[in-house]
């Protein structure tokens, strides 16, 4: 549909038709329809997710109109899930929107299988006990879970799932794969066919830097016992050598060659990041392995055999100063090598599939090709269960955060966000949350607030000491800040948290880009938010 293509044009430029198709077939469940949940879904509905199901058992009150844009005055007294659902539907009629008028906490307790129908569950403003139960349910059924919370001027976003594999991680900056340190025969042959000392000034200034570097590196190795420049001195000398080849100061190709000269000294082999993946225990594939891990196994075989320690060639060539025909020829040489490498990986893939008793043709050629093109950038994300994190967080990290000035506020909020949930479990309200008449009195009288502050402090100190941490690191000002906001869900904070959460949902569903790790703690005071890896 032309219209849909135009409507989504600005995002198709980011995640392409495939990413969009993944979004359009995703089914998303939202728990609680406050501003945090409504804003998260708003961003996803605009982007065209397949279907949304909103779960909320509450009715709209006047106070909800002060922080939720997906409600209006006529919503008062009606089901919040229903009202938010209908306003969200207005944003995009190609999204299937449904609602369930039930409390999420009750649904988690009474009907856990309800969640199995979704691709992903977004749990907002849910208390600790329900979050823990929901996490177990989602893990069991391989449903992706995102927990999002807004609380006063803080909040958090946390992804929970067993494993998420990314082929198209699309990093912003990544060193191109030119193999100048290790040119293959066809590339060498092409370089040999070009005379760097040509007397034609136009050709001289349009000889691509790839050719210049391959030839000059060869010349260098011949004069240095087969070694490429490696020390700082040698690298400098190599640059001087390149400079001496210039006929005029405006030869951009030589400038590019000097700038890229470090690429000839690149170490052979794969990065530590990729090493970790190919050495993962899941590379021992069997009939239950995912396609991704079958490919990693095939990749490993390639690296250890035909690749001689190197991954398959990516095959793309960055633009560089060059005659058109030189550039096109080089492009074809790179593409041919990439295709040859892909064919080998495909061969390994088919064999592995046969070996583990699966149909050898089950993984498509285009999937393998895409995998090979991104082989150096594949990423595996794993997340601890929330229960594991709560009962046995990475202590060394936690200690570090508590004493690190840059992290102390974030980790303070982290502990306090857990503490307010325990407070709520004890007192059936959040600290600093008083009924209507008293809310105003507090400007004059602080005694009830002071009580809450000391109660919250006791709980927070208890959490820290249970974990064996020094509780004196908890800033007093943060504790009173948590009580001041009295569980308020501010629209701007909710919109921020919703923006973060929806970005992560998109990354998870499109399987493109790398989702966040750990727990994101929002700091709305000075915006020095942090990711805590616990």
């Amino acid at each position, binding site marked *: 549909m032309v219209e849909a293509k*135009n*409507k*989504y*044009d*600005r995002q198709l*430029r980011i995640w392409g038709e495939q990413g969009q198709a993944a979004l359009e077939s995703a089914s998303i469940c939202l728990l609680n329809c406050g501003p945090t949940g409504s804003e998260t879904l*708003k*961003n996803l509905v*605009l982007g*065209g997710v397949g279907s949304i199901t909103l779960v909320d058992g509450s009715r709209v*009150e*006047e*106070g909800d109109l*002060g*922080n939720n*844009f997906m409600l*209006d*005055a006529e919503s008062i007294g009606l089901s919040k899930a229903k009202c938010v659902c209908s306003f969200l539907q207005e*944003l995009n009629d190609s999204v299937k929107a449904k609602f369930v008028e039930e409390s999420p906490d009750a649904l988690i307790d009474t009907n856990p299988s309800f969640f199995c129908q979704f691709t992903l569950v977004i749990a907002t403003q849910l208390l600790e006990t329900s979050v823990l139960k929901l996490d177990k349910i989602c893990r069991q059924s391989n449903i992706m879970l995102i927990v999002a919370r807004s609380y*006063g001027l803080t909040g958090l976003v946390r992804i929970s799932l067993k494993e998420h594999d990314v082929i198209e*991680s699309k990093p*912003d900056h990544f060193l191109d794969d030119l193999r100048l340190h290790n040119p293959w025969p066809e590339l060498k042959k092409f370089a040999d066919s070009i005379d760097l000392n040509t007397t034609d000034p136009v050709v001289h200034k349009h000889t691509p830097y790839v050719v210049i570097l391959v030839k000059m590196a060869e010349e260098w190795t011949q004069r240095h016992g087969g070694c490429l420049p490696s020390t700082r001195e040698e690298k400098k000398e190599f640059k001087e050598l390149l400079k001496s080849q210039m006929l005029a100061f405006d030869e951009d190709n030589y400038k590019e060659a000097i700038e890229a000269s470090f690429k000839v000294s690149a170490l052979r082999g794969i990065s530590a990041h990729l090493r970790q993946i190919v050495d993962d225990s899941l590379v021992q594939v069997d009939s239950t392995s995912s396609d991704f891990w079958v490919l990693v196994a095939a990749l490993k075989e390639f690296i250890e055999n035909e690749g001689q320690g190197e991954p398959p060639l990516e095959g793309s060539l960055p633009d*560089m*100063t060059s*005659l*058109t025909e030189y*550039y*096109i020829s080089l492009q074809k040489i790179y593409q041919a090598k990439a295709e040859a490498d892909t064919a080998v990986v495909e061969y390994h893939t088919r064999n592995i599939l046969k070996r583990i008793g699966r149909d050898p043709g089950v993984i498509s050629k285009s999937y393998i090709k895409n995998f090979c093109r991104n082989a150096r950038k594949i990423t595996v994300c794993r997340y601890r269960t929330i229960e594991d994190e709560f009962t046995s967080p990475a202590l060394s990290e936690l200690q570090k955060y508590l004493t690190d000035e840059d992290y102390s506020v974030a980790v303070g909020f982290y502990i306090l966000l857990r503490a307010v949930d325990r407070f*709520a479990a004890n007192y*059936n*309200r959040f600290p600093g*949350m*008083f*009924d*209507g008449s008293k*809310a105003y009195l*507090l400007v004059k009288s602080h005694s009830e607030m002071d009580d809450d502050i000391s109660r919250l402090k006791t709980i927070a100190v208890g959490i820290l000491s249970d974990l064996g941490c020094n509780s004196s690191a908890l800033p007093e000002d943060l504790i009173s*800040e948590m009580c*001041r*906001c*009295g*569980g*308020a869900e501010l*629209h*701007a*904070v909710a*919109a921020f948290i919703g*923006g973060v959460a*929806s*970005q992560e949902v*998109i990354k998870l569903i499109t399987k493109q*880009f*790398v989702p*966040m*790790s750990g727990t994101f703690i929002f700091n*709305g005071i*000075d*915006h020095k*938010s942090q*990711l805590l890896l616990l």
Partner: protein
Amino acid sequence: MADTATNGRWRDLDKLLLRPGNLVGPNFEPSPELRDDLQTYARVLVVGAGGLGCELLKDLALSGFRNLEVIDMDRIEVSNLNRQFLFRLQDVGKPKAEVAAQRVMERVSGVNIVPHFCRIEDKDLEFYSDFNIIALGLDSIEARSYINAVACSFLEYDSDDNPMEETMKPMVDGGTEGFKGHARVILPGVTPCFECTIWLFPPQVKFPLCTLAETPRTAAHCIEYAHLIKWGEVHVGKSFDEDDPEHMQWVYSEAVKRAELFGILGVTYSFTQGVVKNIIPAIASTNALISAACALEALKIATGCSKTMSNYLTYNGLEGLHTKVTEFVRDKDCLVCGPGVLIELDTSTTLQKFIDLLGEHPKVRMPKASVAHRGENLYMQAPPILEEMTRSNLQVSLYNLMGKLARDVVHVTGAAAVNGKTASSLRKLRIVFRGATNDGVADMDTAGGA
């Protein structure tokens, strides 16, 4: 929860505005009056009603602001709908500012939003001076630069060259590209203005013409050849209009021909549009979070209910999640937020001579300036009717036109050369008249608040 008994519509916001705290701004005075004052007196201008502007209007309306205005010259397009959530398919073609204002007012009762469907340059300084805070939701460097200069033009310095707080026009500014974005707070005279840190926005690198003409290698080269070279050769005298689908189609098919000629792959219609219009990819979620950060800072500036961000937040969700706050420092010699370019004149210098001088002045470079002094237009280059009305001033001495003040500030507007490009600019100039003494007419320092 026990607290479900309603505390009124501003149940949540009130906790922030009515209760004392320790991590708050220096002038924070929590009370119900603070919320009332915010609603009654705080006036915010939202510049741009696009992806950021729509979010900003919603966020500000739900953060207690009631007096909002929005300015945008664009009409709604289909490609806006994936993020500009206030617009529907049936709104395509209508002015963004008007529809956005209408939608937010329908949803949030009590809020008043005045739309301005025009260019930012169409409004005079007086219009901008009316606001307490200006929120920028723009995607162009030129427009940011212009608004920044306008906001900074109100800033006055005392005799010790310290910025006077009551003349300060705070700005919050956001920008996004894909999964990345920034939000910043500009307190003119205190934190760096847009121009102080202009290096954060390097100009876009253009392809050399000889590459396009002689050695094309990529699809983009073929497209730019068709767009920048071939169009002019074939359509003599007819300028290219990127919004005309027929023009775009022509460029596309020419680019395809050229790509075939050279064996280059990858020219598509969509890519052609991207290159020619320099389309920046944009998604709802990034716009949402960046605008939210800006709106939250606006609320803090207006009420002091929390400490503020100092002063530049970057967000990157591309590889994991990275956020960082950088405290940039002011450029002490900034021509825009500093005390102004000092120009010494003789008391006999005519306005005409002064205008001629501005074209050559190395720090101004504005050949056809319009000149304003304390809100009064001394000379206007356009429109013709105002030009005619002010033309007689040209032969009068500037000293006389400025009320015989020994020194004072004037504002000049017009096209100026900035970084090799010509752009609409506004400059603040500090004029000092040689040999003149203030004979008690009005000193600029004491008259500052007037």
